[in-house]
C-alpha cells in the first residue's frame, strides 16, 4: 500500500519539472551517407539520468551535470557513438547507418538475447509500418512477411481470425495454432485483442529448441508480442489517423432467371437439331416451377432479376485512430496509448469496433529493485450477420427483395397474403400455390393445368432474415501484469511476474418475431462468459562474464490457472421486438439454456543456460517440465529438453580479414516440445442432461443423463511430443548490405493427439487417441538487401520463401484414417502420405452419348451405382481396372498443402516520399470447391455452365457436365478439385513526410501522410473457378486438422484503400 502511494505520487510529478542545470550542449545530427538530418536520435550523458532526442532538423539540446564526461548517441538503424564532451558546447555528429544492428536484442522465451548470440530459429518483425497496414488485425498484417509463418484469410468478415500456422503442421488436433505470448503472458486470443499500434516487435520462435522453453504448448511455434515501453526523453506525443474503404475484388457471375431460362431453351433448340437423340419433351426443358419463376421475373420484375449478391454487399469502411504519449525521467518511464478502430465489412451487418487503452510504467524503486506495471483494458463490439453470404449468392433472381405494386397484386390472389403491401419483404411462400402462365423464351405459350411454386422454401429471404436479427458480441478484456526484478547480487536477478488476463463477453443473438419464418416467436439468446487467467512466474537469471567466457543461466517456476464460466440463456416471445432484455421474455427455452464451469491448470519448472566462448562459440540448453490438468492421473507430467549450438565463423582469424564478409554464422538445434490443447477432460466421459417425461397427462419432466454424442474419452491420453532438428546459416555481405538467412528443419511428432473416427456402432463418431507419428521437413529462406543508397534515394528489398512438407509415418496400428466433410467428401489420412489427401473418384470428362455408354457396357463395364452411366455426366475412371465402377475406384485426388509460400517487400525512399509494396503468394496445393457440387450454385453460376454438355452433337468442352440432380453428384470427384495457388499485391504503402521547416512552423516534430492499399491485384490459378482461393470452411467438422481444404460460396476478397496521417509532437 505504501508502495502504491509512492507510485501515485511519482505519476503525478512526472510532468516537466526543472532541476539543477550546470551545462547545455547543442548540436546537429546528420546521416553520414546521405547528409540528411536524423530525427529521434537518443542522446544520453553519463552521470546524468536525463536524456533527449533530436528533432526533424536533426538538432538537439541537452542539459547535463558538469560531472558528465561523455555523450552517447543512439538510434535504431545506426551505429551507436560515444563522444567525449571535454569542454565543447556544440557537438555535431554524423551517424553511420548500420544495416544489421549488432546490438539488436531479440525477445526469447523468459528473457532476451543479443541477435548475434541466438542459436535457434527465431524471426523478428519490428513494428515499422505494421500499424499502417490496411487490415484490422495483427496476424493479417504479418501475411507474407516472415518465412515459415503462413497466414491464411479463411474468412473476410469483420474481426474474424485468419488461420496462422508456423512451419506447417506438427500436430493434428485443432489446437495446432501457435502459442501467443503477450509480454510474457500466454494469451489464447492475443492476436485478436492486441492493438497493432502498441506493438514494439513480434518474435516468432520457430524451431523446437527455441520453443521448448514453453514446453507443452510450444509444438506449433510461439509468437511473442512485445509492447512498446517509454524511453528516457521529454514527453513525446503521437497521433495517427487513417480512414479507408473496402470493395470486393471479384464477385460471382450469377445468371438471372431470364438468362438461365434463355440458356435452357437455347440448349433445347440445339438438342432438337441433334438427330442422334429424341427431341426433348417440353416438360423436360424446364420444370413448371422454373417456368413460373421465369414468368415472375418477366412480368412482375420487368425482365430484370434481383442481384441478391449485391444486396449482401456494401462498401466497407475502416477507421483507425491512435494516440500515445511516452517519455521518461530518472527511474521512471511511461508509455500510454489509446486507440479506436472500426472495421466495417463488405458484408452487411458485419462490423467490428475496438477501444484500447494501454499504460506501461517502468519504475526503478531502488538500485536493486525494478518494477514494471502494465495494464491494457479493451472493449470490442462485433456484429455478425445471421445469414451466410452463400445464401445470397444462391438465391434466385426472380425473387424481389421487397414487394412492388405488381408482385403485391399477384400474391393477393391468395387470401392468406391479402395484407401484403408494396414495400413489404417478399418471401418465397407468397408466390407459391398460384396459377402462372405465359410466353417462354422460345415464343411458346405455357399454360399448365395447376398451380406452381416458383421457389419452394419455407424460410424467409436472407435479406429479411438478416435485417430482422442481430448478433452482437461485446467483449471486455483486461490484461494486466506486475513485474518485480530484484538484483540479488552482481549478475543475479530474481524476477517475479504476476499477470491477470480477464476476458468477459456478452453476446445477444436476437431475432425478431417472424424473423426467419412466419409464426416464429421473438427469440433472444444471451451468452455470458468470463474467463480469468492467472499466471505466476518466478525466475532467477544469472549472468557472468569471465574473460572469454560468458554465461547466462535461467531457473524458474511458473504456475497458471484458467477459470472459464459460460452461461447461455434463451428467452422466447417478447412483447415487442424493441425490448430485448431477458426480464421481458415470456418463456425460457430449456433446449437453448446451458452452463459450464471449466478449470484448467498448468505447473512448470524450467531452466536454461546460454554460454558463449570468445563471442564465437555459442551453446544454449534448456529444460522444462510441465504438469497439466488436461490429462488424467499418471499422465499429467511431460518433459521438454533442448540444446542448440552456434558458431560465428567470420570472427575466426582465417575469415576476419575478408572485408566483404560481414557475417557468417552457423546454427544447429534439437529440441522437444509438446501439445496439450485438447478439449477439457478428454480423459473422462462426461454425461449430459437427457430428460424425459413420464406419467399421466402430458407427463412430468424427469431428470435424465446420457453420454456424449460426439466423442469418447481415453483415460490414457497424454502429451503429444514434437522432436525437431534445425540447421541454420546466416550470411551478411558487403557491410551487411546483403543478408541471407537459411533454415532447414526436420521434425517428428509422435503420440499424436487426435480425434480418431470411431465405428459409429460404438455410439459415437469419434474418440480421443494418442497414436501415430508425423514427419515435417522444410526450408525457409530470408533475404534482405540494400539495393541502392544515394543521398536522395534508397531502395531495399526483403524477401522470404518457405517450403514445408509433411508425411504420416504411422498411425498406431491403422493404415489410414477416414474423415468426412459436409457433403460426405472424404479426407484420407494415410501412412506414407501427406496428412490430408482428398479421397474420391477420378473422372475422364463426361459421357458424350448413350452410344458411348453402350459401347463401354458392351466391353463389360458395369457399376454398383444407379447413376454412373448418364450421358452428359461425369465419366468415372475404373481405377482398379476390374471393369466395375464402385467404391473401390476411389483414390487420392489432391492435397491441400502448397509447395511453397512466399512474400517480397520492396521499400523505396526518394527525398520525402516513401513507397513500399508487398507481393505475397502461395504456390501449389489444391482445394475442394463445393460450389460445382451444390445444386443452386452449380445451376446458376456461369462458370459452371459455360461449355457444358448439351447433347451428343453439342458435347461442349467434353469436361463440363450438364446440370443433373439425379446423376453422379455429390460424390467427391476430381472435377471439383482445383488449384489453390495465387499471388497478390497484398500491400502497398505510399507516404510523404512533410519538410522539417513546415513541420516546425506548426510546432510539430514530424508529419507524414500516407496511402495504404491491400489486394490491388490478385491472381488465382487458371483452373480455379471460385472467387477467393484463400476462403476455407473452418467451422464444424472443418475445425479438425484431419479435414481441410474445402470451400463453398466463399466471401469476396476485399480490396482496401486507406488514407492516413501520422503526427508526432
Amino acid at each position, binding site marked *: 500500500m505504501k508502495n502504491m502511494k509512492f507510485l501515485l505520487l511519482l505519476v503525478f510529478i512526472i510532468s516537466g519539472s526543472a532541476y539543477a542545470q550546470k551545462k547545455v550542449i547543442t548540436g546537429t545530427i546528420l546521416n553520414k551517407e546521405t547528409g540528411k538530418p536524423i530525427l529521434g536520435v537518443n542522446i544520453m550523458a553519463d552521470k546524468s539520468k536525463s536524456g533527449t532526442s533530436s528533432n526533424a532538423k536533426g538538432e538537439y539540446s541537452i542539459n547535463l551535470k558538469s560531472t558528465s564526461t561523455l555523450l552517447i548517441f543512439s538510434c535504431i538503424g545506426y551505429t551507436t557513438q560515444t563522444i567525449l564532451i571535454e569542454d565543447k558546447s556544440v557537438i555535431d555528429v554524423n551517424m553511420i547507418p548500420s544495416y544489421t544492428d549488432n546490438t539488436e536484442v531479440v525477445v526469447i522465451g523468459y528473457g532476451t538475447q543479443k541477435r548475434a548470440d541466438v542459436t535457434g530459429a527465431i524471426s523478428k518483425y519490428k513494428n515499422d509500418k505494421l500499424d499502417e497496414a490496411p487490415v484490422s488485425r495483427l496476424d493479417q498484417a504479418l501475411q507474407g512477411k516472415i518465412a515459415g509463418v503462413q497466414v491464411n484469410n479463411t474468412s473476410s468478415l469483420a474481426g474474424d481470425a485468419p488461420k496462422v500456422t508456423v512451419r506447417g503442421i506438427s500436430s493434428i488436433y485443432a489446437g495446432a495454432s501457435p502459442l501467443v505470448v503477450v509480454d510474457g503472458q500466454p494469451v489464447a486470443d492475443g492476436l485478436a485483442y492486441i492493438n497493432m499500434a502498441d506493438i514494439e516487435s513480434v518474435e516468432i520462435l520457430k524451431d523446437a529448441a527455441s520453443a521448448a522453453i514453453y514446453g507443452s504448448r510450444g509444438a506449433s511455434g510461439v509468437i511473442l508480442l512485445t509492447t512498446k515501453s517509454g524511453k528516457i526523453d521529454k514527453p513525446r506525443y503521437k497521433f495517427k489517423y487513417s480512414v479507408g474503404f473496402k470493395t470486393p475484388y471479384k464477385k460471382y457471375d450469377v445468371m438471372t432467371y431470364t438468362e438461365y431460362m434463355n440458356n435452357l431453351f437455347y440448349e433445347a433448340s440445339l438438342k432438337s437439331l441433334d438427330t442422334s437423340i429424341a427431341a426433348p419433351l417440353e416438360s423436360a426443358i424446364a420444370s413448371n416451377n422454373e417456368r413460373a419463376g421465369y414468368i415472375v421475373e418477366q412480368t412482375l420484375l420487368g425482365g430484370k432479376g434481383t442481384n441478391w449478391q449485391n444486396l449482401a454487399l456494401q462498401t466497407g469502411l475502416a477507421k483507425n485512430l491512435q494516440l500515445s504519449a511516452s517519455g521518461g525521467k530518472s527511474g521512471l518511464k511511461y508509455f500510454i496509448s489509446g486507440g479506436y478502430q472500426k472495421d466495417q465489412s463488405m458484408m452487411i451487418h458485419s462490423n467490428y469496433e475496438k477501444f484500447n487503452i494501454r499504460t506501461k510504467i517502468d519504475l526503478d524503486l531502488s538500485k536493486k529493485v525494478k518494477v514494471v506495471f502494465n495494464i491494457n483494458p479493451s472493449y470490442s463490439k462485433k456484429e455478425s450477420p445471421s445469414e451466410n453470404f452463400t445464401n445470397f449468392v444462391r438465391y434466385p433472381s426472380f425473387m424481389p427483395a421487397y414487394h412492388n405494386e405488381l408482385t403485391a397484386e399477384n400474391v393477393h390472389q391468395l387470401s392468406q397474403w391479402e395484407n401484403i403491401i408494396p414495400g413489404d419483404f417478399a418471401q418465397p411462400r407468397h408466390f407459391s400455390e398460384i396459377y402462372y402462365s405465359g410466353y417462354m423464351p422460345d415464343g411458346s405459350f405455357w399454360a399448365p393445368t395447376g398451380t406452381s411454386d416458383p421457389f419452394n*422454401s419455407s424460410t424467409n429471404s436472407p435479406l429479411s432474415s438478416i435485417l430482422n436479427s442481430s448478433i452482437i458480441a461485446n467483449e471486455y478484456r483486461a490484461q494486466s501484469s506486475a513485474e518485480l526484478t530484484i538484483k540479488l*547480487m552482481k549478475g543475479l536477478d*530474481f524476477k517475479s511476474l504476476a499477470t491477470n488476463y480477464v476476458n468477459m463477453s456478452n453476446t445477444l443473438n436476437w431475432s425478431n418475431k417472424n424473423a426467419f419464418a412466419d409464426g416464429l416467436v421473438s427469440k433472444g439468446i444471451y451468452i455470458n462468459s468470463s474467463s480469468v487467467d492467472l499466471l505466476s512466474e518466478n525466475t532467477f537469471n544469472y549472468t557472468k562474464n569471465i574473460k572469454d567466457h560468458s554465461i547466462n543461466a535461467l531457473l524458474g517456476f511458473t504456475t497458471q490457472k484458467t477459470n472459464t464460466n459460460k452461461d447461455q440463456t434463451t428467452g422466447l416471445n417478447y412483447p415487442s421486438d424493441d425490448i430485448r432484455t431477458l426480464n421481458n421474455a415470456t418463456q425460457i427455452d430449456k433446449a437453448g439454456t446451458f452452463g459450464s464451469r471449466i478449470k484448467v491448470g498448468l505447473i512448470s519448472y524450467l531452466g536454461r543456460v546460454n554460454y558463449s566462448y570468445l563471442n564465437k562459440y555459442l551453446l544454449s540448453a534448456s529444460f522444462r517440465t510441465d504438469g497439466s490438468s488436461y490429462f488424467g492421473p499418471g499422465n499429467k507430467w511431460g518433459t521438454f529438453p533442448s540444446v542448440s549450438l552456434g558458431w560465428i565463423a567470420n570472427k575466426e582469424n582465417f575469415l576476419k580479414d575478408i572485408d566483404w564478409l560481414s557475417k557468417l554464422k552457423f546454427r544447429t538445434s534439437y529440441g522437444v516440445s509438446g501439445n496439450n490443447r485438447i478439449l477439457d477432460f478428454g480423459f473422462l466421459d462426461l454425461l449430459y442432461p437427457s430428460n424425459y417425461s413420464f406419467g399421466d397427462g402430458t407427463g412430468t419432466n424427469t431428470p435424465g*443423463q446420457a453420454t456424449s454424442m460426439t466423442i469418447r474419452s481415453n483415460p490414457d491420453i497424454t502429451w503429444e511430443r514434437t522432436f525437431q532438428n534445425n540447421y541454420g546459416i546466416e550470411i551478411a555481405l558487403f557491410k551487411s548490405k546483403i543478408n541471407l538467412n537459411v533454415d532447414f528443419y526436420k521434425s517428428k511428432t509422435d503420440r499424436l493427439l487426435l480425434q480418431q473416427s470411431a465405428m*459409429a456402432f460404438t455410439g459415437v463418431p469419434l474418440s480421443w487417441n494418442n497414436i501415430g507419428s508425423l514427419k515435417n521437413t522444410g526450408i525457409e529462406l530470408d533475404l534482405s538487401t540494400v539495393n541502392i543508397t544515394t543521398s536522395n534515394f534508397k531502395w531495399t528489398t526483403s524477401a522470404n520463401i518457405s517450403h514445408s512438407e509433411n508425411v504420416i509415418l504411422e498411425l498406431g496400428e491403422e493404415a489410414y484414417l477416414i474423415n468426412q466433410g459436409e457433403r460426405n467428401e472424404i479426407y484420407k489420412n494415410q501412412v506414407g502420405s501427406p496428412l490430408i489427401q482428398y479421397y474420391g473418384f477420378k473422372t475422364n470428362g463426361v459421357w458424350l452419348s448413350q452410344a458411348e455408354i453402350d459401347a463401354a457396357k458392351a466391353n463389360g463395364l458395369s457399376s454398383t451405382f444407379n447413376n454412373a452411366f448418364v450421358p452428359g455426366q461425369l465419366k468415372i475412371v475404373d481405377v482398379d481396372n476390374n471393369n466395375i465402377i464402385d467404391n473401390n475406384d476411389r483414390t487420392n485426388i489432391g492435397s491441400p498443402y502448397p509447395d511453397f509460400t512466399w512474400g517480397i517487400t520492396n521499400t523505396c525512399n526518394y527525398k520525402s516520399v516513401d513507397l513500399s509494396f508487398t507481393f505475397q503468394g502461395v504456390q501449389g496445393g489444391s482445394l475442394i470447391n463445393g460450389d460445382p457440387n451444390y445444386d443452386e450454385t452449380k445451376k446458376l453460376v456461369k462458370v459452371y455452365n459455360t461449355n457444358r454438355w448439351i447433347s451428343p452433337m453439342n458435347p461442349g468442352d467434353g469436361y463440363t457436365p450438364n446440370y443433373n440432380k439425379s446423376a453422379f453428384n455429390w460424390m467427391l470427384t476430381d472435377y471439383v478439385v482445383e488449384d489453390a495457388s495465387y499471388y497478390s499485391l497484398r500491400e502497398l504503402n505510399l507516404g510523404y513526410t512533410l519538410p522539417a521547416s513546415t513541420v516546425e512552423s506548426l510546432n510539430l516534430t514530424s508529419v507524414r501522410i500516407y496511402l495504404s492499399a491491400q489486394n490491388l491485384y490478385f491472381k488465382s490459378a487458371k483452373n480455379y473457378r471460385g472467387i477467393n482461393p484463400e476462403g476455407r470452411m473452418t467451422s464444424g467438422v472443418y475445425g479438425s486438422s484431419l479435414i481441410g481444404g474445402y470451400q463453398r460460396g466463399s466471401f469476396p476478397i476485399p480490396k482496401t484503400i486507406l488514407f492516413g496521417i501520422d503526427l508526432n509532437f
Partner: protein
Amino acid sequence: MKYIFNFLTIFFFFSIVSCNKNINIYPVSNLYDATFYKNIDEIDVALTGCYNGLQKPLYEEWSMTELRSDNSIMGNPTSGSSDNKELSDLDMFMPNTYHEGIYNYWLHTYYNIYNVNKVLKSIEVNYKQSEGVLLYDSLLIPVSIEDRKRVAAEATFIRAYHYFNLVRLFGGVFLIHTPTSPTEAKLINRESTDEIYKLIIADLNNTINYGNSAKFNAINNNDLGRVNTWCAKALLAKVYLTLNRKSEAIILLNDIINNSTYSLQPTYKEVFSITNEMNSEILFAVRYKAGSLGLGSPFANMFAPNGSGLAVVNGDGQGYNYPSYELETSYLTTDPRFANNILVYITKHYVNKYISDMAIADDAENDWPVIRYADVLLMLAEAQGYNASSINLINQIRIRSGLTALTTSTINSVALFEKALSDERRLEFAFENQRWFDLVRFNTTFTTLTAEQVMKDHFTIMYPKHYGKYPAPALTLEQLKSFVTAEHLLLPIPQREIDINTKIVIPQNPGY
C-alpha cells in the same frame, strides 16, 4: 547470501504448495461416468436418459419407413436442396452408401444402445451370446435385486426395440450388448440376423419376466409411459410374426387381449389427442412434451406443408412425408382416419397426425405411438390367417371408424383377406412408421402379396403424377421400377463403417 536463501525458501515453498492442487482438476459442471452409476438413484437417472434417446432415431425413421413405402413421397420434385435430394433418393430406392440420413439413423440408434448397455453393465446384467440368455451376475454396488430387475426390464425393451428396427432395415448388423471401446470395436464384424433376433427375444423375455405387469387400469399414474410387460409382449409378438413363428405370436397376443385391459379408444381421433396421452390404446409411445423444455416434437413442422406461413403451424412447414396420392384415394372420404391423418393446404396435402397447437416451432406435444392396441388386434388377425375370427378382428377396427364390416362372403379368398388386412393396416397406421415393416413382413406372413410388387405398383401409379416430373433427364418408369429389387429392401450399411475399419473387412449389403 542469507538474502538469497530466504528467496529460495519462499520460492520453493510456493512451488510445492500450489503444485498438485492446480492440476488435479475434475469437472464441476458435468457428471462423468467413472463416478456415476453407483447407486439406484443415479442408475434411474441414466435409465431416463435412455428413454430420451428414443427420440433421436425417430427424426430419421419416417424416411426409412414411410417414405420408402407406398405411403408417402417427397413433396417437391424440383427443389435442389440437399435434404430434398437425399430424401428423394430414399423415396426412389436409390440411396448411395454415403447417405447422411441413413448414417444419422444408424449413429443415433447405436448411441442409445450404448447408453442402455451402460445401464445394464452398471447393474451387471450381461448377455451371454452363446446361450442367448441374460445373466444377473454378482454386483459390487448396493442395488437390490428387485431394483436391478425393474431397471433391466425397461432397459432391455429399449435395446430390443432398437435392434428390431436395425435388423429389419439393415439385416445382420453389429451385435453390441455391452459398452464397447472404440479399439475393441475395430475387431467386431456383422452378425447374422439369427444372432440379432436371439438377443431381441432374450431382451424382450427379460422384460416380460421382470417388468411391471400391472394391467392398464392398475398402472400407477407415475409409471405411464414406462416400459411394462404388455408392450414387451406385443413387440415380441411382432418379432415372432416377422420370423413367421405365428403360433408363438398368437399366445402372446391373446394374453394381451384377454388380460391387459388395454382396449380401443372410442374414436380414432382420441387415440392421438394430446389431452388423452398414454390412453388405453397406447402400449408404448415415444413421448414428447411441449413447453420449450427441449422435449417437444419436431414432426408438426417437418410434415406441415412448405410455404404455408403460419396457416398450419407456427414457423412454417418443411413439407416432408407428403401423403401419396394412392394412399389418399384408398381412404373413403367419410373415414374419420382420413381427416385425422391427411389435410390439405390450398393444393398441398400433408400429414396432420402429429400437428397440435403449439406456441413455438418444433415444440409440439404429440407423442409418437410405437405399439397400439389396434396393432395387437391386427397382428392376431395376421397370425391366425384367413378365417372368420380374423375378419372379426379387422372389423373391430373398421367399425370404430364407421366403416362397413367385412364378411366371409365378401372376403372369400386368402388373397382378398391378405389385401383387406394389408389395406386396413395401411389406413389405420398411416404415418406411424409401420407400413414399410408391414410390407417386408408380408413377404413371409402372406402368400399373395409381395413388397416388391406393391412398390412397383406404387411407382406405376405415382409416375405420371410425381416421379415423372423430376427434372431432365427424368428417370423412366422402367428405370424406377428396376430399382425395386429384393436386395434393395435392405438399406446399405453406412459406407463410413466400412471405410474406417482398417483391421477387418466389413461386408456391404448386396446390391450396393
